[in-house]
């Protein structure tokens, strides 16, 4: 089993978001970067599958050198090697082109991603990569088992879930509870230092979109507290003041 896991490197879920340079750039001061939480689920499942079935796990990030400590962490958790495409991830189409170019050379059995990045929340890269490679893609996948050359996967749908069976190779967007997040142990951290992290230059240069400016949501007005003894007035206020009922 040859598995590729794609990692986006994004601000931590608790990060306070603000912008600089006339609202054209993310203010990185004090922001901690992590691998996307969904991508972490994908990685954990990949490592479990490798332990179960044998094979290799490669992690891939499109981004600059600042992300390398985070890529090393993925190696510490159990990936065998890593590739960093040395480019700013300009948009989903550009990122997908980089992933597809590498996948075309390496023919992976499984390409696992997160259901969406938590910076641009696109939910796009797996679908675009699937099209570029002529492979099916499914998302969001919350359970994944492999028997022989077939994947059984549970996909979340609105109001429920569906169980699918599909032949490999596949591209999947993952979410919980597909696996438990893994925390690297000391041995993992030591071995990760010597695992290969190959840096390659980008191919193509298509980006079809470009963020030109950022905005923060308008500040929330003060909360109106309703005494518990008069809780019923909430319904009246929602009807007559907020006009939402």
């Amino acid at each position, binding site marked *: 089993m040859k598995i590729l896991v794609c990692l986006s490197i994004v601000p931590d*879920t608790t990060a306070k978001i603000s912008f600089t340079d006339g609202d054209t750039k993310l203010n990185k001061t004090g922001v901690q970067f992590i691998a996307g939480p969904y991508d972490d689920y994908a990685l954990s499942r990949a490592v479990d599958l490798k332990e179960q079935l044998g094979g290799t796990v490669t992690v891939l990030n499109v981004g600059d050198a600042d992300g390398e400590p985070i890529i090393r962490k993925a190696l510490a958790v159990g990936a065998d090697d890593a590739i960093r495409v040395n480019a700013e991830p300009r948009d989903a189409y550009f990122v997908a082109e980089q992933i597809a170019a590498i996948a075309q050379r390496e023919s992976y059995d499984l390409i696992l991603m997160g259901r969406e990045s938590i910076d641009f929340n696109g939910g796009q890269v797996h*679908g*675009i990569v699937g099209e570029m490679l002529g492979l*099916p893609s499914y998302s969001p996948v919350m359970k994944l088992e492999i028997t022989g050359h077939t994947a059984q996967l549970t996909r979340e749908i609105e109001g429920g879930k569906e*169980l699918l069976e599909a032949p490999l190779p596949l591209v999947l967007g993952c979410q919980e509870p597909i696996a438990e997040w893994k925390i690297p142990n000391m041995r993992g951290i030591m071995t990760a230092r010597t695992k290969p992290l190959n840096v390659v230059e980008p191919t193509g240069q298509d980006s079809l979109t470009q963020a030109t400016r950022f905005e923060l949501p308008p500040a929330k007005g003060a909360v109106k507290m309703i005494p518990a003894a008069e809780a019923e007035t909430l319904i009246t206020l*929602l009807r007559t003041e907020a006009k939402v009922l």
Partner: protein
Amino acid sequence: MSVLIFAELDQGEVKVASLEALYYGANVAQELQTSATALVIGTTSADLASLGQYGVTKVLHVSDEKLNAANALAYASVLAAAVELEQASVIVIAKSSLGDTLAARSAGKLKAGLVSNVTELPDTSNGFRVKHSIYTGKAFAITEMREGRKILTLKKNVVSPELSQATASVESFSPSIPETDFVAKVIQTEKATGEISLSDADIIVSGGRGMKGPEHWKPLEELAEALHAATGCSKPVSDLDWRPHHEHIGQTGLKVSPNVYIACGISGAIQHLAGVNGSKVIVVINKDPEAPFFKAADYGIVGDVFDILPRLTKAAREQLV
């Protein structure tokens, strides 16, 4: 050049979020001085001509039973064929589990720029710029989409449709779909029926760990019923299996933007807020006056959910018909 809008069916009816998408797409068409066409996939007995009320002049209907089960791969092939037929330059899709994958596959197929979670009509005065939600609702980006085809996925509640009297012409459409789109066998589907779906709901009543256990959900469900609301929950609640996973809202769950979000016994962790900060009005009921959720709320009640919820239900039943 035209605007194509995907109108998603759920149990034979066009979803509310898709009706908003139709109205949005028709408005974009007007700005671009072109026409808007709806694409409906699957069999339905709904009156498709009436979608004209939302501003589309034509409905392409692919009435094929094989497509009643939502299959994003096959839908993307259909959509790409419709884009060719209509010479569409802008494609509008309401966000949903199906809509997201459909948009992504179509972007790959058509080499189209794709912007997800759009929150406003585009600015077409100089190029094509759209505002969309990023960092899970913590910010917005204004993104320039380059020349060529463009796909937008829309958040719910971005437009309030004003209906006209118009009717649309309905044409049947049967493009060929590659067999490879059907490689996955659907072994089993579990879907709650009869419930109001979270992504379509105007009102959501949501419960956290403060609800104490799955056996205590009745008061919350009763309020939801009285308000015609959908029910949601926090992550620990679905992790503990108190509620099904598809009700989980937040950073790692569903992102919702209803008119009213009523949070019952949810502390308001930043990862939960990330899923609800698009709501118009947020109501928080929590026994702890220091709960962080109150800072993000429009209305707050400090109290015990098991005292407050039944009283709200009673008031709602009396005041709403």
